[in-house]
């Protein structure tokens, strides 16, 4: 059975993955950045106490 380059099993599936991926990875990037800028999250992530130790 002849197939077309734009069939799902040939070229279309990778194209769809790449198109969705372009939006997904950019959103993921912005989410990571906003988490990195969140002091509350970074303290939790690094396992720090909320109270600053007095020296």
């Amino acid at each position, binding site marked *: *059975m*002849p*197939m*077309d*380059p*734009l*069939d799902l*099993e*040939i*070229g*279309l*599936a*990778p*194209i769809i*993955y*790449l*198109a969705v*991926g*372009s939006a*997904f*990875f*950019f959103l*993921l*990037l*912005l989410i*990571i*950045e*906003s988490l990195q*800028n969140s002091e509350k999250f970074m303290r939790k992530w690094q396992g720090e106490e909320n109270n600053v130790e007095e020296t």
Partner: protein
Amino acid sequence: MVNDPLPRTFQQLQINNTISGFYASFIFSMALAFKFASIIAFIVKERADRSKHQQIVSGMNIRAYWTANLVYDYVLYLVISVLAIVIAIGLDVQFITEGNALAAIWMLFIFYGLSYISFTYVASFIFKDYGTAQASYYFITLILGGLLPILVFLLRVLGDSTNPVGKGLAWGLRLYPAFAFGEGVLNIGSVTLYGIR
């Protein structure tokens, strides 16, 4: 002496196209890997040198930073992509110019840039040193984007027992943009082979 060979058969021409697909998938992936390696090096260097931090402290919007980077890198990537496709057409790489193949190749290139540049930005958080980032990212892109699609292709065409394994692997591995691109190019080159087997 007169050399007058018989014209190539349909099957021989299809095998030629498949071999061209192997080469194109590997060579495009290898060439574009340099571009993405240079992108990650710049991003990691900017973070390591604290110049990104300096810009944030000066009031820069972080979304504007990433969007500007994406636009700049994508425009440069498009120049390389257009050149690569024009050269392939100029050299009469038949599997690219036949039927809908050219449209499919264009779409692969257009979305690969957007997808893999964004992926590269996300991956840049893993690295601390820009030299290490550049070298290792180049090899990761080359192996996963250039060699893995060939392995999956072989699984798909070797036999009826390995065919579902190859197909199943492809669905998962396509989440990695370099693999999706390499597999797409290779599949387009082998479109008739898939059809006749």
